Structures are given as C-alpha cells and as structure tokens.
C-alpha cells in the first residue's frame, strides 16, 4: 500500500534525486513540438490533424499490440509511442492517404522499436524508419506535395487523405513542388522569409523554420537535448553549402536556404538528437552531427533525391555504436592502450 502523503519518509541512498525521467523528457519534446504542430494545422487545415492522429494511432496500436501483458500500460504511459507518431506525421506530405499514415506509424514502432527490445534498445530512429518504409513502399504518394490551404479553408480536407485502405489516392489536380525540389530541378529559389514563416509546400512539420527553432531553444533550456548535435549538423551544412555557393552561386543553394529548407531543422533538432540512437560521448556527438550534415548536403546536391535528411540520419544511426566505441574517454589511471 502506497501512501500518498506519508508522515515519515524513509529512503536509502542515493538521496539526491533528479527530476528528469523518461516520460517527462518525452513530454517536453511534445511541448516543444506544439508550435510546429499548430502551424501545420494552420497551413494545411484539418488534413494535418487527421494525418497526425492516424500516425499516432498506428504507433500506439503497435505499442499496445506487441507489449507483454504486464508492460502494456507502461509503454503507453511514457508517451514515446505518441512522440514517434507525431514526429513521423510531421515528416509526411499533407495529401497522403490516412491509411498509409497509420501503416507508417505501426511499422515505425513495430520494426523500429518493439523488435529490438523496446524503448532504449533500438538502433534506428523509429519515426524515420517508418518514413523510410513508407517512401520505399509508396514512392509516388510520398512525393506528391499539395499547396497549403487558402485562408479560411480549415475544414477543407485534401481528397487524397480519404482514400480507402489499400486504394490509391485520387489524382488531385493541384500539386506543388517543394522549395528543395524547385531548387534541384528548376533552379528556382524560394525567398528566405517564406521558408522561415511557412506558406510553402512540403511535409507537415517542415514549413516553418522559426517555430522549429523555438521548440529547439525550449528543449535546450530544459537540458533535454545535446546541443552539440544540432549545432554540428547546422554548422557543417552551413559551411558545406557556403563552399558550394562560392563555387557556383546559380547551381547551388545559398547557405541559409540550405538550413531553412526541407526537413533539416526538424531532423537536426528533434530526430538526430534522439538519445537512444545518437552517441553519448561529447566527441561522438560532434562526429555524428558532422556526418549527418555532410551526408545531407551530399544527397541533396549530388544524389538523385531533392531531400536527404532522413537517409543521412538513418545512416549515421547505424554508425552510432561504432562512434561510441571509438570515442570512449580514457579511464583514469589506465594507459591509453588498455581497453
């Protein structure tokens, strides 16, 4: 019997308690994402809410289905499934059929987390794994972008959203290229203010750079994320694209465009910093971040895809155990050559 208001509390050491627990950290990330989520609903209306809801439902359902009888409540309470669903939803195009969003959330948790042994054991970021699965499975639906809704059209749902399960989305007349797509295939630059405040086509969460940064600052103040990772990603992208735009300013995007376009901010702040799938050592965090930044630019500039944040982070996730192994600090009192 646990008393909620005991007269006398008896503890054994350690007596110093830290307020930070996994559910709290997860909830902090959810709060940090709230502005960007609200913005996605502002720009894409009810569709955004529906897609995010479908992703979260899929993720939570997988959590519930594959949990053992005893752990069933536990894995739902720490909110990590909800966070995975939300993050996945923010990387999806607004016109995606809802059943695909649900499937993505389900696969992300099932193949990205549960199969590895649950929270804290996975090698890859579950949300990005779900997205990679969707991109490989439905390449056309995942790269069909619709323009943001016009003013006052909140309750207007994109026709693609309501496709029946296993059926194709009806062909929507209006599609729009993302800023990165326009840059890559038409050499057309989107103004920076649009990239910062939204009002561009793209996935749900990547339209407003400023709100994503705001959430990042909140997380940094709450000490929920390792600032080295986003800092090194953004810095390496800045430097890489500065060099490129010095070489040829017409063909290659400007540094600020590179940082604010696509899913870079979303990926750098919320996905690369996932404590489970990123290195724990400070030196490792720098190596990880630089690796992600360089890979992003390599894929964007020299690869066939306009956007490379997802694959860059997944590739560096795979390298994380190796990075951790080679950046272990020397144990005090031992030589450098001993293990």
């Amino acid at each position, binding site marked *: 019997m646990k008393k909620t208001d005991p007269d006398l509390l008896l503890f054994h050491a350690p007596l110093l308690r830290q307020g930070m627990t996994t559910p709290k950290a997860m909830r902090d990330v959810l709060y940090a994402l709230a502005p960007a989520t609200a913005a996605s609903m502002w720009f894409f209306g009810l569709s955004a809410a529906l897609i995010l809801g479908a992703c979260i439902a899929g993720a939570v359902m997988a959590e519930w289905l594959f949990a053992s009888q005893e752990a069933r409540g536990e894995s739902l309470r720490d909110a990590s499934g909800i966070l995975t669903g939300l993050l996945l939803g923010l990387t999806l195009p607004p016109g995606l*059929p809802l059943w*695909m969003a649900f499937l993505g959330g389900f696969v992300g948790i099932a193949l990205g987390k549960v199969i590895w042994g649950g929270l804290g054991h996975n090698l890859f970021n579950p949300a990005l794994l779900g997205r990679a*699965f969707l991109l*490989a*499975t*439905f390449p056309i639906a995942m790269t069909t972008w619709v323009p943001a809704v016009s003013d006052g059209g909140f309750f207007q749902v994109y026709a693609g959203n309501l*496709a029946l399960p*296993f*059926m*194709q989305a009806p062909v929507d007349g209006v599609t729009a290229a993302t800023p990165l797509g326009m840059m890559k295939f038409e050499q057309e630059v989107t103004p920076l203010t649009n990239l910062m405040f939204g009002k561009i086509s793209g996935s749900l969460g990547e339209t407003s750079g400023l709100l994503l940064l705001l959430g990042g600052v909140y997380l940094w103040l709450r000490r929920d994320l390792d600032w080295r990772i986003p800092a090194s990603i953004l810095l390496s992208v800045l430097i890489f694209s500065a060099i490129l735009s010095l070489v040829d300013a017409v063909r290659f995007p400007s540094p600020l465009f590179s940082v604010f376009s696509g899913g870079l901010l979303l990926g750098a702040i919320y996905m690369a910093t996932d404590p489970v799938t990123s290195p724990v050592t400070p030196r490792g965090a720098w190596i990880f971040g630089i690796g992600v930044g360089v890979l992003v630019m390599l894929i964007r500039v020299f690869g066939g895809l306009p956007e490379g944040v997802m694959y860059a982070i997944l590739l560096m996730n795979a390298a994380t155990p190796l990075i951790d192994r080679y950046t272990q600090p020397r144990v005090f009192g031992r030589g450098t050559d001993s293990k």
Partner: protein
Amino acid sequence: MKKNEFHEEFIKGIWRDNPVFVQVLGMCPMLAVTNSAINAIAMGMATFFVLVGSSFLVSTFRHLIPKQVRISCFIIIIATFVTIADYTLLALVPAVHKELGAFIPLIVANCLILGRQEAFASRYPTKLAVMDAMGMASGFLLALLSLGSVREILGDGALFGMKLFGENFEPWVIMILPPGGFLTLGVILLFFNWFRLKKDEFLEDVAAAERGGN
C-alpha cells in the same frame, strides 16, 4: 507401425521440421524468386523434382558410394536432375524460366537438397528416403508459395496474375523488391516462433495440471 513411420517421415518435412520456417535452409531461392506466386510454384516444383529424384538415386546406391567422395557423388547426381529440370522448364514454360534465370542452375547449391542426401538419403532405405524427400520438398513448396502469395497480393494486388482489388489498388512497391522478401519471411518466422512458444506453454500447463491431479 510401418505405415505410421512412412507417414511420419512425410509429415515432419511439412510442419515440425519445415526446411524454411524451422531449419531456415534454402534462403537464396526463398528470398530471390518469391515475388510472385507463379514463380514460387515453378521454383518449388523444380526443387521437388530434384530433391525426390536425387534422394531416390542416392538412397538406392548408398552402399556403392565411397564415403570419402560422397559429397561429389551427391553433387553430380543433383546436378543431373537440375539440368533435366532446367531444360524441362525451358521447353514447357519459357516465360517463367526466363524470370527465374540463374536461380534454376543454383538449385544445385541449395543446402536443403545436399543436406537431405547427407543426413537422410545416404543412411536410410529407398522408400523412407523418398518419403522424406517428398515431405521436405512439399514443405519447401508450401513455404515458397505462402511467401510468394503474400508478396504478390501486397506488391501487385493480384494472385497468380489475377487482379484481386480492382484498378485502384495501391501497390506496395517494397514487397516486390528484395526487402519485401526479408520482411515477409521475418514476419512469418515470428508467427511460427510465437506459435511454438504458445504450444510449449500449453503443453507445460497440461503436464502441470496432470501432475497436480495425481
């Protein structure tokens, strides 16, 4: 008793010792050619023919094959049947033959076939060896077919080339590609292991209840 033994040798290959789901043998054709049900059947039939034929020959001549060179003898016998299967498929169903490509000659290297010769056919009488080969080959065929059906239904919305869901079906591209093979096989293995776990638990419960009753 004798009849029961025959029966047992056949059944074990289909379920208890299924070459794919339990022994995890023959992965190469399993993952490579199961992107449609018809390919899976063709591959399964070819393997069936090769396995039963070579088990028959190996078992018949098991006293004549010198122990020191038995592997090369097995391979020569297997390769003979694979060549027959290769030309038969080419003559009867050239389209499927083209689709399967290099994987028909590669039946020679299927560890399931060589494994059955080494483990069973070279030690047991011909009748049992043929029963065992038929059981194993049927198990392999069923496994290929189940994988091929799942991948064709999801990846193409069709089964044996017939559309199941109408024109608007959204194909799961990944299922036709190699990752789909790994994913489907993984999910089926997951199901098999879960089933065995549940069965063991059930048997333990029954045993415990009986002990308690006594």
